[in-house]
């Protein structure tokens, strides 16, 4: 039995599009890897960047953010706000040493079950290649070991 790395990915979905796309993928029996744990929000605009940071700090290897296609937001234009926040957050995360591929933004309408499934499959493979993130705050005891380690000058 091969010991393949199975990434943990937190996926944020919008109630009006991508959550239904995931539902559609399920009822259409489209297969996608079980590595992604979906969380439903009312809108991608509800996605506080804190959620992404907390997921990564808590042990996730990647985060998927999904929302309605530009121009199709149930709340007019909140998905644009999600996009702006995503672009700025990604720049910040790069400075923290987190590869930009670990956080991905995907648009998927309620009819696009197949598209969502294929994007999830692609993301899982990309993150599998990157390897585990293992952010130190996610492992009990390890943090204390690192932070109290004395470094000779």
């Amino acid at each position, binding site marked *: 039995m091969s010991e393949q790395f199975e990434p943990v990915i937190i996926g944020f979905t919008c109630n009006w599009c991508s959550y239904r796309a995931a539902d559609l993928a399920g009822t259409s029996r489209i297969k996608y890897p079980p590595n992604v744990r979906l969380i439903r929000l009312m809108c991608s605009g509800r996605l*506080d*960047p*804190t959620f*992404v*940071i*907390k997921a*990564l*700090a808590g042990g996730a290897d990647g985060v998927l953010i999904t929302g309605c296609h*530009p121009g199709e937001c149930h709340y007019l*234009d909140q998905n*644009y*706000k999600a*996009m*702006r*926040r995503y*672009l*700025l*957050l990604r*720049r*910040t995360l790069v*400075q*923290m*040493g*987190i590869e930009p591929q670990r956080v991905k933004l995907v648009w998927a309408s309620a009819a696009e079950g197949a598209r969502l499934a294929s994007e999830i499959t692609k993301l899982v493979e990309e993150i599998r290649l990157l390897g585990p993130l293992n*952010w*130190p*705050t996610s492992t009990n005891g390890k943090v204390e070991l*690192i*932070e*109290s*380690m*004395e*470094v*000779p*000058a």
Partner: protein
Amino acid sequence: MTASSNGKPKFAMYWASSCGGCEIAVLNIHEKILDVDANFEVVFWPVAMDAKYKDVEAMPDGSILLTLFNGAIRNDENAHMAQLLRRKSQILVAFGSCANEGCMPALANLSSVQEIIDTAYSTITTDNPQGIRPQPNYTVPEGDLHIPTLYPIVRTLDQVVKVDYYMPGCPPESHQIAAVIDLVVKVLHGEAQLPPSGSVIGAGNSTVCDECTRQRDVKTIKEFKRIQHVMLDTQVCILEQGVLCSGPATRSGCKALCPAAGSPCIGCYGPAEGVLDYGARLISAVASVIDSNDPAEIDRILDGIPDPAGMFYRFNLAGSVLRASKSAWLNKPS
């Protein structure tokens, strides 16, 4: 036993990894400092009086009533003093931004310790022809010398010891310090009660924007500008004028001093009530007012923020959810 021979409760103040601004802010309460002297016996305060660490070590545990601890935990000396003063004090206050959330010293958490030391001792601005590096232990004819050793990650005080109260600010505003001293004196005389343990004291519960008197309208930003490149309108919200202002994420308590003086809030009072990650909250606020729906244009506008992590975590990196960059955690240059 908290009272000294003259019957007054004991007071201490200590600086760990900090700049000394907190001490100046305390002295800046003017004649109120006499209240401190009238009500307390100052037993340990390196910036103001002579005392040795061994004097503190000799005190009975819990014998100091109130210790204001400023500064982050950067090295083993800071950690030792944090643990020592925790043991000796009944009330330990994380005083100022460094002790609360890391402040400037914690920006070191963006780099590995090795990079920091290399930069300090071997870059072109350093005159060090023999490549001398500090040694933690060194023997001289008079005996063995030990200098503090750096930790890879700068920590906040409450990441090392239990903290009773949090008093934010870089430094805490003098009127807030005076108010806290008034309260403590009242408590000593039985005229008031201490707030619940773990409270933030000497600050507001809202944001700096809430205290700011500038006019606010719809924010639509096409370009982020550096403050030295614009003549700011004195009445209008600074963020609306395209200059980054940290007011939306920052705890109130300073009376919006910087915006009133024509300078953006830089976030020294730390996260507003209920904010888990200061930088994430500010990213959220700043990004949502960008006036574009085109990813390429948004990226061009974001180029106006050359150092997002330094900007959004200027005071808060050690206290943030990620706490440090990967290269700092692993002590490997990025």
